[in-house]
């Protein structure tokens, strides 16, 4: 069977992983448009170069999206655009079908508080709370130690507590 064309492979991977990768990018960046840029950048490279020698496409794509996100955050930071507080509240949505749906005001407050966190803390929050990964699994995903991940998580919660009750 001939190998799949990079375009077809990219379409297949986008259909299976695109949404999760986008949510991941959206949380690291706290910005939907920037998340679109990051995901588009990664998939454009995938179409151009294919997945030669990649044994675990999901892991590879997550790393690539992560790198693209931090690169965008660095660019924003070096241009003097404030990273904290630059978030758009739309990057968070209420979980559909929840018996106790979150109000618009609470969602806006949460988005602002999460947007004020550093990208690394938002990332850990995402992996642990929204993707349900353990600290060890999150650590493997981002290439840090479990204690670093746990520490970022604790700092994130403490800052959120402070912001939301302030």
């Amino acid at each position: 069977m001939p190998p799949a064309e990079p375009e077809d492979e990219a379409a297949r991977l986008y259909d299976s992983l695109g949404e999760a990768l986008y949510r991941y990018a959206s949380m690291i960046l706290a910005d939907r448009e920037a998340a679109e840029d990051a995901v588009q950048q990664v998939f454009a490279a995938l179409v151009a170069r294919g997945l030669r020698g990649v044994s675990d496409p999901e892991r590879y794509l997550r790393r690539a999206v992560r790198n693209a996100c931090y690169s965008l955050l660095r660019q924003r930071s070096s241009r003097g655009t404030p990273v904290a507080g630059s978030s758009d509240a739309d990057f968070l949505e209420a979980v559909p079908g929840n018996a106790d749906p979150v109000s618009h005001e609470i969602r806006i407050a949460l988005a602002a508080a999460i947007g004020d966190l550093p990208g690394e803390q938002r990332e850990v929050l995402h992996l642990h709370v929204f993707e349900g990964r353990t600290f060890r699994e999150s650590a493997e995903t981002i290439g840090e130690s479990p204690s670093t991940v746990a520490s970022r998580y604790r700092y994130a919660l403490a800052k959120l507590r402070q912001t939301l009750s302030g």
Partner: protein
Amino acid sequence: MNDERDAERAPDEPPHDEELVALLRRVRPAGPRPELRSRILGASVGPRALAWAAAAAALLAVAVGLPVWTSRLAASALRPGAIDMPVQPLADLMGGTEDAQRAAVLIMATERLRAERDAVRGGASAAVNP
């Protein structure tokens, strides 16, 4: 309602982590807009398309650039003093007058243009048919 509890909470009373995490679990990062898929997969340019684009750009550059380049070369070659080395012996051979000087410049410029043009045509042909 948790929202009501949150609203009633005193500002100096921080929520416990469990409550905060429960609150966080009622939201999630938004999913991609449906048009992102077509934007990503439709706009991406594969290697084959890039190769064709490069070939088309090379042909366009030759087609547009060659006449412009030759006319500029002719203009610069016909400037007085632009070609000096072999002109003088030829002018002397033709009588050494002012007219002979001008004719020698013209002849040498024409020869040089022809040689340059042949070289470019040879290069362009090699680029299109490697």
